[in-house]
């Protein structure tokens, strides 16, 4: 009976049009059908309509149930059923919105995690590169310092080649000093030889004088011989005189010859001494040359080796410089990656969070409007418990204030999807 009453109430506006529609075929055949057929079919038509109404038409959702409050009218129950349906729809939309929000937050979380991972790996990579740069720079410095002074200023081994450029310079300096000393000694010895040569020249002058004297004696003897042959027989005294003169000349010649002999002996002695000095000098010069040659050969070999070492060290320094530059370039690229990722996250964050906020605000407004459309009886404590959603004063200060008013048009949020609110 209750079902029939609710059905009658629910379909009260549709009963007459339904009857008219059912009567249309009967009226259509009424003109040519026999009277008895029309008489029989008319009550049957009403019976069919009644059965159709009872068993074919769906029962309205607001039918009274056993658990319904008896004090409520059917209209109130129907309104509450509709409100319940809206509440279910709203709940479904809340669930959908929550799901979408969760997905968006998951996406944001994923991006943030990605950025953090990128940042972490970039920082690690940059740290590694800086360590590499520092290590290579230190190696460069060590190579350069080692190039200048490998032994750290220690004395060079006399037998071995120089180990560093400093040693090489010191060895060259010692060699040049030694060569200078030897050349200086040679110069002194040559000066002594020159003095001896001067003495020989003086002796030669003396020999020349003695020879001139001997030539003069020979000339005087020749004159005396001619004179004696002219006056030989005539004058005996003159002959004696001439004899004395010849004797004197002979003595003078003898003295001159002795002087020449002495001079020649002096020259012989000087020549021997000079020869010895020249031999000693030649031997000294040969020894000095040989020693210098050996030292120069040794230094040249060491220098060539050192030059190769310098070349290799400079090449290594150059390679290290290039690798340092590559590391710095890599650092720059890593920093750019981090910056680009950060910028992307910045661009992603704002619209996504804004969309999320707008969605939640929209849902909040819909819920508030729904609450406001609940019946006035909801003022009772029981009805308040029956309200599906209550927004907090903090999140929606206008909600409680606007309760009971007709429409929340003045509190419309900034998003222009008020049509959703209008659906209620």
């Amino acid at each position: 009976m209750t079902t029939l009453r609710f059905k009658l109430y629910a379909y009260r506006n549709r009963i007459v049009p339904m009857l008219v529609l059912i009567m249309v075929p009967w009226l259509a055949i009424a003109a040519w059908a026999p009277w008895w057929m029309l008489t029989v079919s008319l009550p049957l038509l009403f019976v069919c309509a009644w059965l159709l109404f009872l068993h074919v038409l769906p029962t309205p959702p607001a039918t009274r149930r056993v658990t319904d409050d008896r004090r409520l009218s059917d209209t109130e129950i129907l309104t509450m059923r509709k409100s319940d349906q809206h509440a279910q729809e709203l709940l479904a939309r809340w669930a959908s919105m929550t799901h979408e929000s969760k997905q968006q937050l998951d996406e944001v979380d994923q991006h943030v995690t990605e950025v953090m991972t990128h940042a972490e790996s970039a920082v690690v990579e940059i740290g590694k590169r800086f360590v590499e740069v520092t290590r290579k720079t230190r190696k460069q410095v060590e190579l350069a310092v080692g190039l200048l002074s490998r032994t750290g200023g220690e004395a060079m081994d006399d037998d071995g080649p120089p180990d560093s450029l400093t040693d090489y310079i010191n060895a060259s300096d010692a060699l040049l000093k030694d060569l200078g000393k030897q050349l200086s000694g040679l110069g002194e010895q040559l000066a002594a030889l020159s003095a001896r040569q001067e003495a020989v020249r003086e002796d030669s002058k003396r020999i020349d004088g003695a020879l001139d004297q001997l030539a003069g004696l020979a000339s005087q003897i020749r004159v005396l011989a001619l004179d004696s042959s002219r006056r030989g027989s005539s004058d005996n005294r003159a002959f004696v005189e001439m004899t004395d003169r010849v004797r004197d000349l002979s003595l003078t010649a003898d003295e001159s010859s002795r002087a020449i002999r002495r001079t020649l002996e002096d020259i012989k002695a000087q020549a021997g001494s000079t020869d010895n000095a020249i031999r000693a000098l030649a031997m000294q010069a040969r020894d000095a040359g040989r020693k210098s040659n050996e030292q120069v050969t040794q230094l040249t070999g060491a220098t060539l080796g050192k030059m190769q070492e310098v070349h290799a060290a400079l090449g290594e320094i150059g390679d290290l410089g290039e690798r340092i530059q590559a590391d710095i370039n890599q650092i720059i690229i890593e920093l750019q990656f981090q910056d680009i990722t950060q910028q992307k996250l910045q661009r992603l964050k704002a619209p996504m969070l804004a969309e999320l906020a707008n969605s939640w605000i929209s849902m909040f407004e819909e819920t508030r409007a729904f609450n406001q459309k609940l019946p006035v009886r909801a003022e009772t404590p029981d009805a308040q418990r029956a309200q599906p959603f209550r927004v907090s004063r903090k999140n929606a200060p206008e909600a409680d204030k606007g309760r009971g008013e007709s429409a929340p048009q003045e509190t419309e949020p900034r998003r222009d999807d008020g049509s959703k609110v209008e659906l209620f």
Partner: protein
Amino acid sequence: MAAILVVDDSTTMRQMVAFTLSSAGHAVTEAPDGAKALALARQQKFDLVITDVNMPGMNGIDLVQGLRGLPDCKFIPILVLTTEAGAELKQKGRSAGATGWIVKPFNPEVLLDTLKKVLD
């Protein structure tokens, strides 16, 4: 040595480009957005401009157009340095008057080689 204007809203990126160019001996001036870059270009003469695309206010494409409208910048090389690699945007940049398009992250050596090419 060339006078180069670097335009990017990211300080890190700007400093990175400036470091690379300064190391190569160029004189670098920095601007954080297109409007300030245009103001600088009106006051000072540059040999080359490097700009990002996505910037607050005036973007890089508009900046290229604006620079091409200045008498001193009509024929100088303008390079676009951006994360964007879309063909359509590249075409826009080209139409605006950009000389080259470099996609971030840039390799310093490649950047310097490109600079050498466009400056020669």
